[in-house]
């Protein structure tokens, strides 16, 4: 499973949405209407899925999907 697909799985689990609803280069609060608690829930899901060591408010709803993917990719490369 590619990194993008794995990240989308986390979004899907938290938000009950299909993968097609995510616009990779749009801000998450704009394209998905994500609120602050949903963003924390997604962050916690990503931390578990990728074993990330970041705070629960590490990702922001004003980021894009691709920015989050790139951040995780860079962490995995370290």
């Amino acid at each position, binding site marked *: 499973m590619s990194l993008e697909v794995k990240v989308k799985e986390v979004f899907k689990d938290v938000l*009950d949405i299909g993968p097609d609803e995510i616009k990779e280069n749009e801000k998450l609060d704009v394209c998905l209407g994500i609120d602050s*608690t949903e963003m924390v829930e997604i962050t916690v899901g990503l931390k578990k899925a990728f074993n990330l060591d970041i705070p629960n408010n590490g990702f922001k709803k004003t980021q894009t999907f691709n920015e989050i993917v790139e951040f995780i990719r860079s962490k995995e490369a370290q």
Partner: protein
Amino acid sequence: MKRIAITGMGIVSPSGIDERKFWANISHGRSAVKKIERFDASKYPSRIAGQVHELDAYSNVSSRLLKKIDVFSHMALVASQIAIQDAKIDMEKENLKRAGIFAGNAIGGWLYAETELRDMYLEGREGVSPFMASAWFPAAPQGQISINYKIKGYSKTIVSDRASALMAIAYGAKNLNDGKNDFILAGGMEAPVSPYGLLCCNTSGVLTQRNDTPETAYRPFDKTRDGMAVAEGAGILILETEERAKKRGAPINGYIIGYGTTTDGVDRIEPAEDGAELSRAITMALADAGLEPNQIDYICADGAGTQIGDISETRGIKKALGAYAKKIPVSAPKSVFGNMLGACGAVDVAATILAMEHSMVPPTINLNTPDPDCDLDYCPNKAQSKEIKNALVINRGRGGINSVLALQRGR
């Protein structure tokens, strides 16, 4: 007070979500108190309750939102949606900075909270959903309703045990009197039928333990009573000034015309035996409404179903109304569906409005052995025909809270 119109009602109750079904069930005295089967309640002293069915059939709440809210907020959203439709209010055409929410709730969203607490002990801090922060607390339904409808006006959540919803409705009406809002969604919501919520209710010592006969367990004013059956549900009313309601041609179900409240100041759980402060709250409500005792046609009682609750309520009514107290029906419709705690006031008001519309007093069920200390006409087991112009609704909470609302017939 200037009378305030009730122009919409949304009921989510064990006796039905549809208004007509609710009235048919309570007026015929068909008990909705059943054994709890959604979790293993076999070790609880009281393991019966009024439980809401078919909520999903009436709900348009998304599955995404349902993950973030407790069931007490879900019930409140469904009740709000029904009430707004009933009042024929187009929210898109309203100035929502002048709309408000007055919500009553006693215990908060425990199903959500206890699930997350379990996860905290099993998985540690990271196991707790961040949704917990906004899901469990008593003002959560107020927040969710405001988000849902973009309501931005003066609003408040009242936590006052079993008097919460009645107080919320009363303070909503007072707020309209003060000109702070154009219209208000007022009522209450409660979801005590969860493992921890039910445990807390049990420890208060006021629940019936007649588990083998749920339908006949809740017996207000009966000598063989042993406590109330708990229930879940929500009720939301649309309140607006009479002037505004008439101007927009809204259906006026009834009016709020007065309110009184006092506290006993004697015990953490039980009311004062003499009912003196309840009597004073009734007198305050009558004065606020500009009514004499003999102008009251019906009293929707608190009907705690505990010995001290029933006897002190009877004493309070007699003290306030004098000899006239024995000439009017006093019934507890909640004997049919259970006690909704912080939500019961909203459903009691709805039941009283429906009683006015149908010129019929819904019965107190399971009243077969009269208690000599409870000597009013409690309308036992069978509805009574009765023209009702003015009525009182009484709700009381732990810690000696007395709350009395005066209502008047609308259409």
